[in-house]
């Protein structure tokens, strides 16, 4: 009993962790399944067939490539625009400042399906062809909020005297921005960019409303789930998860080594 009380925090932590990781583990395990029939819901027997042929299902790798492409461009667009907006909101007092603040916050607060439908209406009324560009525009729009929020927090907490110190030490405004402001804001910008990539890559609702006949990876998964779930989906999911984990580990190793040296 006493042991339980002393380790309660650790036990609660481990249980929460298990709760978070369990779905990923299931996906991972079933990527080695060899199902009978079209649905990958029951464990049959171990096989690496799907891993040796991840593109074996028609259109899967095409949709994956498209999703990655959209995610990369949406991240770049949202990060650049969002960083600029964040600096403007944090640094300057202008007339529409508070309304812009609210506007930026809206996409995060609004139900996604409402935004998706209104965007689709807008594109339809303007007579714009649905496809890659409408998806990209929609993704940049909602990723923007997250970048602005992350970068603004960082810029607001920055001591304005650092930039004055840089100017005092012969740095021109451009040099001050590149050598002091940007490096200090970088963690916020990076956080915003990572969020954008993740949000764009797995967005389904908004994309589905504005894609036309274009099919992204989440849409492919959704579509195939009605007719059967190829094991390759689990393979891609597992691979994405592992890549993300590797990136985080690599990042921690890198910063850890820099701190020690």
């Amino acid at each position, binding site marked *: 009993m006493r042991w339980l009380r002393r380790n309660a925090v650790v036990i609660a932590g481990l249980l929460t962790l298990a709760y978070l990781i369990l779905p990923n583990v299931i996906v991972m395990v079933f990527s080695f399944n060899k199902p009978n029939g079209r649905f990958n819901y029951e464990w049959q027997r171990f096989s690496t067939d799907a891993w040796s042929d991840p593109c074996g299902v028609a259109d899967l790798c095409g949709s994956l490539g498209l999703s990655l492409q959209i995610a990369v461009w949406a991240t770049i667009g949202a990060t650049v625009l969002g960083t600029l907006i964040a600096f403007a909101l944090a640094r300057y007092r202008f007339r529409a400042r508070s309304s812009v603040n609210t506007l930026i916050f809206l996409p995060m607060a609004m139900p996604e399906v409402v935004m998706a439908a209104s965007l689709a209406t807008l594109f339809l009324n303007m007579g714009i062809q649905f496809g890659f560009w409408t998806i990209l525009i929609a993704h940049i729009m909602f990723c923007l909020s997250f970048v602005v929020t992350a970068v603004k927090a960082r810029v607001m907490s920055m001591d304005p*005297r650092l930039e004055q*110190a840089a100017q*005092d030490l*012969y740095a*021109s405004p451009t040099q001050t921005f590149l050598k*002091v402001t940007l490096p200090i804001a970088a963690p916020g910008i990076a956080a915003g960019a990572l969020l954008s990539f993740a949000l764009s890559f797995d967005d389904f609702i908004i994309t589905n409303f504005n894609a036309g006949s274009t099919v992204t990876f989440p849409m492919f998964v959704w579509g195939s789930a009605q007719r059967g779930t190829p094991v390759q989906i689990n393979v891609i999911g597992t691979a994405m998860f592992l890549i993300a984990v590797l990136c985080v580990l690599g990042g921690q190793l890198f910063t850890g080594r820099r701190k020690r040296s």
Partner: protein
Amino acid sequence: MTDLATTDSSGGDVRLTGISKTYGSFTAVQPLDLTVPAGSFFALLGASGCGKTTTLRMIAGLEEPTTGTVELAGKDVTALPPYKRPVNTVFQNYALFPHLDIYENVAFGLRRRGVRSVKKQVEEMLDLVQLGPLARRKPQQLSGGQQQRVAVARALINHPQVLLLDEPLGALDLKLRRQMQLELKRIQTEVGITFVHVTHDQEEAMTMADTVAVMNGGRVEQLGAPADLYENPGTTFVANFLGTSNLITAEIAETGGEHLLLTAGDAKLRLPAARCSASSARTGEKVLAGVRPEKVALAHADDAGSIPEGANRLPGRIKDASFIGVSTQYVIETPGAGELAVYEQNIERDGRLVPGAEVVLHWNPAHTFGLSADQDIAAGADVDEEAA
């Protein structure tokens, strides 16, 4: 960056002409003229909000003056942005770059000016401030005193004509502050650069500076060497802000001769005419007679006969006595002049000098100074010294 004014180690004059700063309807700095001679250690002293930091920032170029000009070594730099002025600043709380290590912080100014090989200079500078082994640490891994030394090194490595220090010791504890005061003074003597130091700590200003300008309400109240300001304050603010003063409202009874004869209640006081800064001193007018607490001696009322002839005397009763080691500080209630402070060295302590005892205060008339009576007698007395 090649158009920087030439920088040599001899430092340059700073000349402010009619400089002022207003924010909307608030005037931070009244039009002021100030010349800081090359190679001197100059202190701007005043309470928070007196305009001293704004004045410093106008010299650095971080604040644009509303009127007036700033000249450095004979060159008008009013229109130059901060990064083109041959001055460097040690900021309050140091403003070290958190993303750069100590070495890169110190090298920052050299690199921005396109200096190729910075290694030797940076290492020399880090040795000067005794931080060589910590070159690869980040600022947040250093103690307050070490960060302060980095900030000084980062500014000095550029050999500015003028080094500006904005409350550089405010964040340090008392002992470290005393140590850094001596350290800064030593560095200044060594490099010979003009230092302009902003502080609210009167003791700091007096220990370090050759010349002190006391600022109040956006204007310079008085300017001079520390000892001169202390002995001959020109206004009640200076008298109360620099140390403690006893100010007694008195009426001029007699003029002519070396001394003015004053009456305060029943007491008669003498004031050297040369030390009276009141603009007019005619019979019947009021003046403030001042004397520093450490220059006043106490005699028990029974011993009043032994007081030297010709001394200024005031009878009173001890209200409070606090023993603080080197001296004992008394508060004396006097009928004619209110409460006065007296600091007595603890050499031969008179056991009868306890609260309630009747005493006579006496001092050499030469230690009396006179101030114009048309000012607030308590100005500068209750200024919160800890407010930055």
